[in-house]
């Protein structure tokens, strides 16, 4: 086991897969000569050269489209969005080309492509730079969506994503790149589509992903101090959802809270809620609650931002509420 930052774990994943398969290349803004806006791709240009580490102008629709076309031709692009906020200008490429061309061509073309980059709020970047995009990209067929929160998951899932023959949207986080953790040595692959229990418990199921994980774990700790045991499930893959893992836990706890970075209306959170309601209807002892962004554009000021982003305290309140604990 090595202790790595998430950024390093991601880099190792890319590096290993580039070494393994000549068809894998990286493309995006500042990925090469600048060594990556957040240094995920640091050193890769030096190692693999300009053919395989491709700096682009600011043209997200353009280079996303180039990635899609290259994937159709048999290459395996890793397209970096400097942040997923900028993927908004490439939305059509992902929705109408990446997600559809295999089906539209009746299987003649396959698109092994990964779109990756940081997602959701960082710190005081205000509203255009603090958005969680999984709710958009989970909403249509033809893609898989992954969100990682630990170095081991980052490495294992990115390697699987690069080897997967489908278009994958892969979410990271600016504020988590420096988070450290143990990563198994040697070939380390984690299957796409499998959630993981990050903290076992019995009283309340807390479903989370991405930046939500740290909040959920902190809240579980606070709940534990009050004698309330939480089982924290990190979805890791958001599309397809690992219903089985969530259902098994909720059947046991009869209570469910979701904790995540993202707006409340619809999206991934509402989907999980709907599934739990439907699949565990007779097991639920309380309404499912969601702890996420307030339904607001993210303000710049730190005090306001803190109020909009979910906190362990807000998560704890929801946990208490589904457990019918008054405080």
């Amino acid at each position, binding site marked *: 086991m090595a202790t790595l930052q998430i950024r390093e774990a991601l880099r190792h994943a890319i590096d290993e897969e580039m070494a393994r398969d000549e068809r894998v290349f990286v493309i995006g803004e500042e990925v090469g000569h600048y060594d990556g806006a957040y240094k995920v791709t640091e050193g890769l240009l030096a190692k693999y050269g300009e053919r395989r580490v491709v700096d682009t102008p600011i043209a997200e*629709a353009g280079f996303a489209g180039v990635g*899609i076309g290259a994937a159709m031709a048999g290459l395996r692009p890793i397209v970096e969005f400097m942040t997923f906020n900028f993927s908004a200008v490439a939305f059509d490429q992902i929705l109408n*080309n990446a997600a559809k061309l295999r089906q539209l061509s009746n299987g003649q*073309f396959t698109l092994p492509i990964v779109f990756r980059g940081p997602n959701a709020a960082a710190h005081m970047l205000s509203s255009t730079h603090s958005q969680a995009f999984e709710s958009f990209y989970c909403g249509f067929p033809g893609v898989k969506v992954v969100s990682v929160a630990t170095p081991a998951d980052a490495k294992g899932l990115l390697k699987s994503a690069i080897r997967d023959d489908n278009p994958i949207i892969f979410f990271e986080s600016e504020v988590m790149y420096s988070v450290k953790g143990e990563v198994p040595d040697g070939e380390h692959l984690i299957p796409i589509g499998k959630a993981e229990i990050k903290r076992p418990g019995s009283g309340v199921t807390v479903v989370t992903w991405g930046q939500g994980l740290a909040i959920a774990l902190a809240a579980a700790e606070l709940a534990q101090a009050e004698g309330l045991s939480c089982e924290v499930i990190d979805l890791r893959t958001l599309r397809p959802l690992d219903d089985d893992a969530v259902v098994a836990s909720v059947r046991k706890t009869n209570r469910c809270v979701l904790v995540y970075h993202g707006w409340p209306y619809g999206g991934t959170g509402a989907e999980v809620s709907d599934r739990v309601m439907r699949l565990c209807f007779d097991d639920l002892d309380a309404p499912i609650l969601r702890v996420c962004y307030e339904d607001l554009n993210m303000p710049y000021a730190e005090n306001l931002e803190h109020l909009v982003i979910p906190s362990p305290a807000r998560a704890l309140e929801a946990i208490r509420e589904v457990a019918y604990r008054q405080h």
Partner: protein
Amino acid sequence: MSRDTAVQAEPAGAASEHGKFASDAGVQRPRDGGDERAGSGAASEGGAARASVDEQRRLYTEMLRIRRFEETAARAYTQGKISGFLHLYIGQEAIAVATADLMRPGDRVVTTYRDHGFAIALGCDSGACMAELFGKATGLVGGVGGSMHFFARDKGLWGGYAIVGSHVPVAAGHAFASKYNQDGAVTFCFLGEGAMHIGATAEGMNLAGLWKLPIVFVIENNLYAMGTPLRRQSPVDDLTTRAPGWALDHDRWVVDDVVATRNRLARIAERARNEERPALVELLTYRFRGHSMSDPGKYRTKEEVDAWRKTDPLARGEAELRGAGLSDADLESIDAAVVAEMDAAVAFADASPPPAPEHRFRHHLVEDDP
């Protein structure tokens, strides 16, 4: 004349004078005769005269096959056998035929929803094409794509795309892969003049110029985007004025002759292939039908349509074959064979089954395939 024969037209990239192509008069029409520059260059390079009769007949027949396919599809549409959108290629056939004829193995065509002509020209089975329009299991893409999404990878047809401009970066990606793999292929990316004003197009062309990709962007300027004439799309009439800003070679002509168009385009393609010179080519052409089957085309005058009929490359092809000695009977027998092919295509499509219900689950993700 073989596709390798050198041609003598003036260098592309220098040919365009960025002159106005009379579109400001309210009536959009080809420049009045006499100016060879405005035409494909047939006269100046000897054009059709330098193609053998066999070759002329072959190219003419290919154009005719497209025209008859389209007419047949239009009929089937009015009979309710085809639904959705149906964008016909009638009038523009010479472009697909010229392109297919100059392509080398491995070369790719990426185009719009107006894609049947390329499929036919590239050798796709007309029955499979018709069956696709009919939404049948035997269709080119199994009935899931319909008119706007013909794909035939093995024939070099890398697809018909229906979001205007969005295929331009994708085509650049195909060319990127060619450069990455050094596979020697050229990608031909076709787009309407209406697609020249949307962002994805500009981004894709800049990337192609920046990375010197082996690609030729071909604007099929049929003067209208649906009902919008070029003068309400753009303040410039000559769209190759945009090429220097992306460091693309450029050229521009009226497509009135299939042989000359092929030859002129072939040379541009070889520079893209061998000399890292991607290009933007603007081909002035005309669609004789409405934008799609639902468009009566009221925005055009009969006068304008008639003016363009005079330069219809299919009519020219026919006239040249006559000039080369083919009789009415010869031409009728060519047509009869083509009509028979299209009748057979309809019969095949009619007789084909619809897709199996489970087919709708296929091909989204690789694991969906049985």
